[in-house]
């Protein structure tokens, strides 16, 4: 048995159907699912990023405020001190010590304190350094404080290499300026930078305009200041810096009020984004789980569906088979009447001929004479005629048997013209005698031998001729049965000059159980079955008709049925052994 394409792939129609259903359902699920997941994930990611960034900015802002408040308070404190205490006079050293000893415990960040006169000479000093009488006139800070009234220094490494900060304020005794200067350590600074953080996730830095790190609050690895990008004034800039080890940190930076210092809060993005990565993993796991679930369910659903379809198809095939049989029986019934008549004619002739022969012999025996030559001739002719009629009867019964035989679709080489001619000969007598209808044959001699089932072709054509006869009588008419060769196909048509059909009728004519014959005359199955038979033979049946102009049924048959049909037929006939 030749393998068909389907068999070569190892799949048959139902398996293919099953995979098609599964593929389709998976596609339907798998396209929206990632879209939804992806979209939600994106929104979540944006949210997380925004939150993290906003957090960072907010911290930077708060730190900035805290520092500025701290510094402003220190300045105010000092100013208050200068207003409250008349420290401008010389020899107030002891008094300065007293003040310092009061002040220092209250605010532990004071390292030293000094008083300077209008020339910039520190005339009083309390603290760990030896700075008494030091002349600061030439320094930048003295010039600034004498101009601005306030000076806040950069952070510098001071006593024991701890970062320090100096603040100086100007005051007057009368019209003479004098200056109070203090050094504070940056512990407080650092505490300020760190305060309010739970879990020390972020380091904070204060950096000057030369990109020197003044303060580093935090325990993580230090950043590489060259990777800092300065923000605009008033801006809280979010960006990235590199650490000395090459890691990238997320930062928020902003200028402190004096615009000399940049406050920078740095955070390791991975820690914040861990939750995001976690969410992504969860999403992926869920997706794959869903995929597996859907896949599994789809597979079983598809199997179930296809099994149902298979069952329905099988049932439909059984029903169709039954319909065919029923239709056959119906046709058979109709044929029986016609056939009885057909057979009765030969029988009648045999009866008369035999009776005649008997009479000749009877007459002869009663005369007791020899048979005359003429009588012998008559007897001989009569017996010959009897034999002829016997074979005529046999012909008819054979046809009936052929029709009644259980339909075994058999593909053989068929001379279509001859098959049709035989059928018409058989039908012709019946049709023309009873219904005043003539059947015209118009056969194309060029049609080749085709491979098809002749019995089924005859069944279809008889049905068509039946219908034509039914609808053209009693007025009588013409039925034309024609064959024609037309590019690779054979066209077989049955046309009549009967009443024809309106378009809406034409559209329904092949529907099962549709008939225009009165109840009892038509089952509505004939053309539906013809349609089925022609399809199975790999062909097509169509109708051309116009009201008042008759109808023409055209069957298009391939020269060979397709391999599928042939296989199925072979398989069936093999089953029957």
């Amino acid at each position, binding site marked *: 048995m030749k393998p068909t394409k389907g068999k070569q792939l190892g799949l048959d129609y139902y398996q293919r159907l099953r995979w098609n259903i599964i593929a389709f359902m998976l596609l339907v699920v798998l396209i929206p699912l990632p879209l939804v997941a992806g979209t939600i994930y994106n929104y979540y990611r944006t949210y997380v990023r925004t939150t993290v960034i906003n957090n960072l900015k907010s911290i930077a802002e708060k730190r900035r405020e805290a520092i500025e408040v701290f510094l402003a308070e220190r300045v105010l404190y000092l100013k208050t001190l200068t207003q409250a205490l008349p420290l401008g006079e010389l020899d107030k050293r002891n008094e300065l010590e007293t003040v310092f000893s009061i002040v220092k415990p209250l605010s532990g960040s004071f390292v030293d304190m000094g008083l300077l006169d209008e020339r910039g000479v520190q005339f009083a000093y309390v603290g760990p350094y030896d700075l008494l009488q030091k002349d600061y006139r030439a320094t930048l800070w003295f010039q600034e404080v004498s101009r601005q009234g306030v000076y806040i220094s950069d952070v510098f490494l001071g006593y024991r290499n701890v970062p320090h900060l100096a603040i100086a304020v100007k005051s007057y005794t009368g019209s003479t300026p004098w200056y109070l200067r203090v050094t504070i350590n940056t512990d407080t600074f650092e505490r300020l930078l760190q305060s309010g953080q739970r879990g020390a996730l972020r380091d904070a830095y204060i950096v000057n305009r030369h990109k020197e790190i003044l303060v580093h609050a935090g325990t993580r690895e230090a950043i590489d200041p060259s990777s800092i990008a300065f923000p605009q004034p008033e801006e809280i800039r979010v960006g990235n810096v590199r650490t000395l080890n090459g890691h990238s940190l997320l930062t928020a930076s902003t200028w402190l009020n004096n615009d000399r210092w940049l406050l920078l809060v740095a955070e390791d993005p991975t820690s914040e984004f861990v939750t995001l990565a976690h969410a992504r993993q969860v999403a992926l796991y869920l997706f794959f789980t869903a995929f597996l679930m859907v896949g599994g369910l789809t597979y079983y659903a598809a199997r179930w569906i296809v099994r149902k379809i298979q069952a329905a198809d099988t049932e439909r095939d059984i029903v169709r088979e039954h319909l065919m049989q029923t239709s056959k029986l119906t046709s058979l019934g109709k044929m029986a*009447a*016609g056939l*009885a*008549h*057909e057979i*009765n*004619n030969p*029988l*009648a*002739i*045999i*009866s*008369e*001929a035999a*009776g*005649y022969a008997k*009479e000749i012999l009877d*007459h002869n025996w009663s005369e007791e004479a020899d048979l005359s030559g003429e009588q012998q001739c*008559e007897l001989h002719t*009569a017996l010959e*005629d009897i034999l002829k*009629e016997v074979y005529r009867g046999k012909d008819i019964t054979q046809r009936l048997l052929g029709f009644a035989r259980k339909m075994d679709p058999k593909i053989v080489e068929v001379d279509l013209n001859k098959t049709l001619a035989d059928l018409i000969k058989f039908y012709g007598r019946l049709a*023309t*005698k*009873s219904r*005043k209808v003539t059947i015209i044959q118009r056969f194309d001699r060029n049609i080749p031998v085709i491979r098809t089932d002749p019995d089924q072709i005859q069944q279809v054509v008889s049905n068509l001729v039946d219908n034509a006869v039914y609808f053209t009588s009693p007025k009588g008419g013409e039925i034309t049965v024609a064959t024609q060769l037309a590019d690779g196909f054979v066209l077989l048509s049955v046309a009549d000059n009967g009443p024809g059909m309106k378009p809406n009728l034409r559209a329904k004519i092949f529907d099962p159980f549709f008939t225009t014959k009165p109840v009892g005359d038509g089952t509505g199955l004939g053309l539906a079955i013809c349609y089925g038979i022609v399809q199975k033979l790999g062909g097509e049946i169509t109708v051309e008709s116009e009201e008042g102009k008759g109808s023409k049924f055209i069957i298009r048959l391939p020269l060979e049925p397709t391999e599928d049909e042939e296989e199925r037929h072979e398989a069936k006939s093999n089953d029957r052994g």
Partner: protein
Amino acid sequence: MKPRVMIVDDEEKFVDYLSKRLINNGYDVTTSLSGEDAVEKVKRYNFDVVILDVLMPGLDGIETLREIKKIKPLTEVIMLTGHASVESGIEGMKLGAYDYLMKPCETQELVSKITKAHDRKADQEERIRAARVADIVSSPRSVLKE
């Protein structure tokens, strides 16, 4: 006088043998192979009994019967049917056929029916004659009516 019989059927052999047999049985037999031909013959000749096949091309049995009854109503007709179509038999009888038979038929039965049909016709003709005589007797002028 021999009864005049016409056999009408499109099966030539059947007509042939039947006519031979009826001739042997002492009938005067005419044959016809179609309804139209039969009607023509009925117009020209007189028959006592016509044996008529129901199923024929052209003018079928029932139509032929109708025509015959229009032309020569006293002619008796026996319908022959090849298929068990009781309806056409009954229809025929409603139209005036004497009886109907199924092919193939037992010649004896046919002969007996022909005889009975012929008898009925003869009987009818006799009654008609009697009526006419009575008519003439009562009114001599009725001779002129003929």
